């Protein structure tokens, strides 16, 4: 009887592989028992895999594939709840709607939104942004004026850049006064893709 004998009972690699299978049992039971506060999941899209987070209050986050998911999950833990667990079921509706949007079959998202990852100002800016319909654009200045902060175009830009729920809350539809795309937290190539998908409205703007 020595250490080596005992360790052969479970090799490290074996435990790791088995644990990954057992994790799925834990996730399923957590879902069944209502113990998931932040359900996370992924969905493929033409602008890269999206990482979504859904709480009982609604959709809290859509992350792009070049965002650090460990950091995002930590933000959920801090700002929502540490009970962050992968769940295909709880994220299914949002993932399906995103699929339909990218397939051109959906122009409006029918989801409730969990605003807890936004400051009051960001929330206000996003509420205004959400009024811009599919296929149209507005400007930073117009959003600033609409929320009665006409001089705050720059702050509006920063607020849009911190939007935790891009695509669904359509910050990509806000462009510069000249009609230039100017900026997008997910990268200008994504903003351009989304606007093209919606019919390239910048062509007709101004």
């Amino acid at each position, binding site marked *: 009887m020595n250490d080596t004998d005992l360790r052969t009972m479970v090799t490290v690699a074996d*435990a790791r592989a088995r*644990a990954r299978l*057992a994790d799925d049992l834990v996730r399923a039971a*957590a879902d069944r028992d209502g113990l998931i506060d932040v359900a996370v999941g992924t969905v493929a899209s033409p602008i890269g895999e999206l990482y979504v987070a859904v709480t009982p209050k609604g959709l809290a986050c859509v992350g792009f594939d070049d965002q650090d998911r460990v950091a995002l999950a930590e933000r959920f833990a801090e700002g929502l709840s540490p009970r962050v667990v992968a769940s295909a079921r709880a994220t299914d509706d949002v993932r399906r709607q995103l699929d339909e949007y990218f397939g051109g079959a959906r122009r409006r998202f029918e989801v409730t939104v969990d605003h807890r990852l936004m400051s009051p100002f960001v929330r206000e800016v996003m509420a205004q942004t959400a009024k811009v319909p599919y296929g149209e654009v507005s400007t930073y200045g117009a959003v600033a004026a609409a929320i009665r902060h006409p001089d705050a175009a720059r702050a509006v830009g920063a607020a849009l850049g911190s939007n935790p729920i891009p695509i669904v809350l359509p910050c990509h539809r806000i462009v510069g006064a000249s009609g230039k795309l100017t900026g997008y937290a997910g990268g200008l190539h994504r903003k351009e893709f989304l606007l093209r998908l919606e019919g390239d409205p910048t062509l007709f703007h101004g």
Partner: protein
Amino acid sequence: MGTRTPPPFERFLDVHGPSVLGFLVGAVGRDHADDAYQETFLSALRAYPRVRDDGRLDRWILRIASRTAIDHHRARARRAEPRATVPDRPLAGPEPPDDALLAAVAALPPKQRAAVVLRHLLDRPYPEIAEILGSTEEAARANVRAGLATLRERV
């Protein structure tokens, strides 16, 4: 101690899953390890919103696992099932374990079994084993000593 929010539960599973499963395979046997694993992490998830990360979450989850293991043996005893004298299914893998050893470990009293597994499978130092089992360090040492003595006799 620190009072940080614990890591996202997915990360917690990822980090601690393998050692918890390793412990449970030793402490309740392969056939019951998956159930005990699920029970352990569900208990943790229930308590998780109130947990603060003080840098000792590894011991916290092993404490839950050892309680789960000991409860498992108590429940089996109540149901008057014969204690495993036949080894759990042998491991699939490059290094098949010694059936006699597995059987001998399975036949140890639950607390000795947990202590032996923590010391010799997970390499935990005695102060941590004591913390996990909720005993004194001396009691942890005594449990390991007694368990090993029995194993030496039987194997």
